């Protein structure tokens, strides 16, 4: 038994965009520029691991997940998923993976939940016994049994997402890709989904790749995170390091009176300036926000300020700006 369920090496995927310059607009042979959506990513995922796959919108996450699930063919590089090259053996790969797209349902909108399960059963050749066992198990954890007779369109988003995940696990896949499974859910529903993911991971040793924009999901579930931006890996390692480094980060947004003055502060890290608005990232254990405001107040006139928790995007920005220093 190999220990790496997923092996990705120097993965590249590029696409062409048509030049919109004035000279080429009217020419039939329009010129194309190649843009790399994924630019040399390498990583491995061990059996039973939950990998948090994060990065800002457009970083290349979805493209990578699509290559892992056999939808797209890489331009170059190596991928092995459970010993299979996904794009060469799409159907076989499909049998060993489960995929959930948070923003796109795979269920039959007008039909009762049970019908969607039955279709999964036929397509993935799930045995009667496995099907029955899984239904019972999913009912125990998620209460999906309660809405088996209800059409999918009448479920709440939280209920639907539970069914969505249950359907993706019906054929006992060894690997599951969860693409923003908690998007748009309220706190309680998120909690429920996260518990379920954790439990299934522990019970069945399912390998999971999770993409999300919610730092709390990552903290609850993942042992390791992979951060990408502009198609490149910018961090790959355990979550504790990132958490202790950035998880306690807060962002102070101050609006100062005088725009022209060059802005400088001794604490924290100015990550963005929008005219008179300054975004300062700082660690709440190192400084207190009050001290910072006082300090700024000494030199500049503050019109307004606010304090926000940092999200993944900010952390990625922070890691990225450190990398580029």
């Amino acid at each position, binding site marked *: 038994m190999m220990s790496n369920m997923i092996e990705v090496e120097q993965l590249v*995927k590029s*696409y*062409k965009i048509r030049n919109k310059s004035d000279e080429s607009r009217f020419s039939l042979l329009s010129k194309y520029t190649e843009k790399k*959506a994924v630019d040399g990513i390498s990583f491995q995922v061990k059996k039973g691991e939950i990998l948090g796959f994060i990065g800002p919108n457009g970083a290349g996450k*979805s*493209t990578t997940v*699509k290559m892992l*699930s*056999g*939808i*797209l*063919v890489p*331009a170059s590089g190596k991928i092995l998923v459970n010993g299979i090259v996904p*794009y060469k053996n*799409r*159907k*076989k*790969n*499909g*049998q060993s*993976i489960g*995929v959930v*797209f948070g923003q*796109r349902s*795979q269920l*039959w*909108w*007008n*039909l009762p939940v049970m*019908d969607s399960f*039955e*279709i999964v059963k*036929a*397509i*993935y*050749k799930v045995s009667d016994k496995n099907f029955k066992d899984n239904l019972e198990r999913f009912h125990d954890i998620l209460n999906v049994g309660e809405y088996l007779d209800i*059409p999918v369109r009448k479920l709440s988003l939280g209920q639907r997402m539970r069914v969505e995940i249950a359907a993706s696990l019906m054929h006992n896949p060894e690997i599951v890709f969860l693409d923003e499974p908690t998007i748009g859910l309220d706190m309680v529903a998120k909690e429920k989904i996260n518990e379920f993911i954790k439990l299934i991971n522990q019970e069945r040793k399912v390998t999971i790749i999770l993409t999300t924009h919610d730092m709390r999901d990552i903290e609850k579930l993942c042992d390791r995170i992979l951060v990408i931006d502009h198609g490149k890996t910018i961090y790959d390692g355990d979550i504790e390091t990132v958490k202790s480094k950035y998880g306690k980060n807060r962002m102070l947004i101050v609006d100062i009176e005088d725009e022209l003055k060059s802005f400088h502060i001794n604490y924290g890290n100015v990550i963005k300036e929008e005219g008179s608005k300054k975004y300062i990232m700082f660690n709440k254990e190192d400084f207190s926000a009050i001290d910072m405001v006082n300090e700024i107040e000494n030199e500049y006139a503050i019109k307004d300020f606010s304090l926000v928790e940092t999200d993944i995007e900010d952390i990625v920005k922070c890691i990225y700006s450190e990398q580029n220093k």
Partner: protein
Amino acid sequence: MYTVKCFFVLMRADLKSRMIYKLSPFLYIFGLILLYISAFLGNYIMLTKFKNIDGWEYGQIIFIYVFCLVSYGVRSIFFNHFTNLGGMILDGSLDNILIKPMNSFVYLVGSHFEIGGFSHIIAGGIIFFKFNHLFGVTWNVKNIIFYIIAIICASLVQSSITVIIGSCAFFVEQNEGLRRLYEGFRQFIYYPVTLYNKYIQVVLFCILPLAFATFIPAAVFLNHPVYNIMSKTSWLLFLVGITGLLSVIAVGVFNFGLSHYKSSGT
């Protein structure tokens, strides 16, 4: 076996989900039947004024009309969804199909039926039985078999063209224009193709080979003098050959398009 089973499971689910809104699909089909019958009646009034157009009796023209309606109906039921491939690529629902461990083409056909197609077939049937006496056809066993084979071929030709045009969505972002072009040329084949000028005939025989879907089988069937160069049986074999070729090309273009999408999409 597995693929056939999945096809029927998907078909059942798709039809069931359409029947959820009980009355609506029936009203939809009924409305379309009225539309096609009334369009036909307009033509019928014109036809009765002429009796004979360029060697074609109006009964024969009605025969071609029915042939066209029915084959388009069959095509619509099974393959209409291929005209929407562009939309499926844009909203990502195609990706949902690509992650399934089964043939994507079969999944696409099985999971999207267009029940509107039944209206073409029913309307065609009504016109057929109403004007049967004008066709000048004796319905013996041989003719019935010929007719059924010809209808199947015609439907497959219409379907193949639909699949090929739909698959263009894999290469261009918008294939709505092409689809409209097809819909436009499709209107020509309700009548004998020899009525049109050379350019339109070239298109209908060679570029969008819609003439093979309706005109040729109908004309051979009606023993039109133009087609007396071969026996009926030879013509039938010829049609089956052309249909087979077009079907293979259609599936090929679809698969080629899919692999292009897989290597160029993001």
